């Protein structure tokens, strides 16, 4: 059975934020909620690297393990989703997640956390496929339409890949062999005199 995975090839990521914008638009994610983010290390310095991060849909998801109300489940294709009706907004999944994927809307008079929201691998949630409730609560369900996550499909350099883990790994392996393992930006070492 296919296991869905993301892979971001940091040699190719140019921090264009197309993935972030695509996700925001597709699911109408409110201001302040970041389902996907591009993280840039060593900004403006030789060796600068960017990588696009969202929920990694872990096989043994820590969020799922620590949830006090067990609102998480994993689909047959390995996508980790949760039921917002069960979620109590305690924030514990955020403690557990190594990627900071769980996000919370700022709602309520006393800054009450509200229901957790995160990347769904464009697989919607536990509502009927293509229903209004699913769109409202979880965003668009692309997998049910036979499409893959929009962030990866929109990636301008094909650095962000999303699909069957085996297929993604295969493509990446070919890439690494073709570029002989080193960075694809030719002048990187020379331009910054890092011989």
């Amino acid at each position, binding site marked *: *059975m296919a296991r869905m995975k993301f892979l971001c090839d940091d040699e190719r990521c140019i921090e264009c934020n197309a993935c972030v914008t695509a996700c925001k638009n597709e699911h109408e994610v409110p201001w302040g909620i970041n389902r996907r983010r591009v993280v840039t290390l060593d900004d403006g310095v030789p060796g600068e690297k960017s990588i696009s991060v969202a929920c990694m849909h872990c096989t043994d998801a820590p969020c799922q393990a620590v949830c006090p109300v067990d609102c998480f*489940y994993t689909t047959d*294709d390995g996508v980790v989703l949760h039921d917002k009706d069960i979620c109590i907004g305690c924030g514990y999944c955020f403690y557990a997640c190594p990627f900071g994927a769980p996000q919370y809307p700022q709602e309520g008079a006393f800054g009450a956390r509200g229901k957790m929201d995160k990347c769904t691998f464009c697989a919607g949630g536990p509502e009927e496929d293509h229903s209004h409730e699913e769109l409202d609560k979880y965003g668009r369900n692309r997998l*049910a339409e036979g499409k*893959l996550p929009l962030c*990866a*499909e929109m990636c301008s350099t094909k650095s962000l*890949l999303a699909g069957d883990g085996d297929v993604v790994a295969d493509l990446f392996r070919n890439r690494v062999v073709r570029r002989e393992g080193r960075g694809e930006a030719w002048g990187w070492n020379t331009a910054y005199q890092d011989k």
Partner: protein
Amino acid sequence: MKFSTILIAMLFLTACYEDTDVTLHEAGVYKGSVDQHALTAHERETVLKKRFKQVQMDR
């Protein structure tokens, strides 16, 4: 008068109603809604593999 007292008391007691439709948590058991899918996982795998090759392969 006794009748109206009982009536008012009953009126106030309506506030004691409790909705028994509460989800009782059991450790390790998912009690959320079931995620319905039109296609089986196997069907999805085929369709999505085709989609990946169409959209995300290096040219």
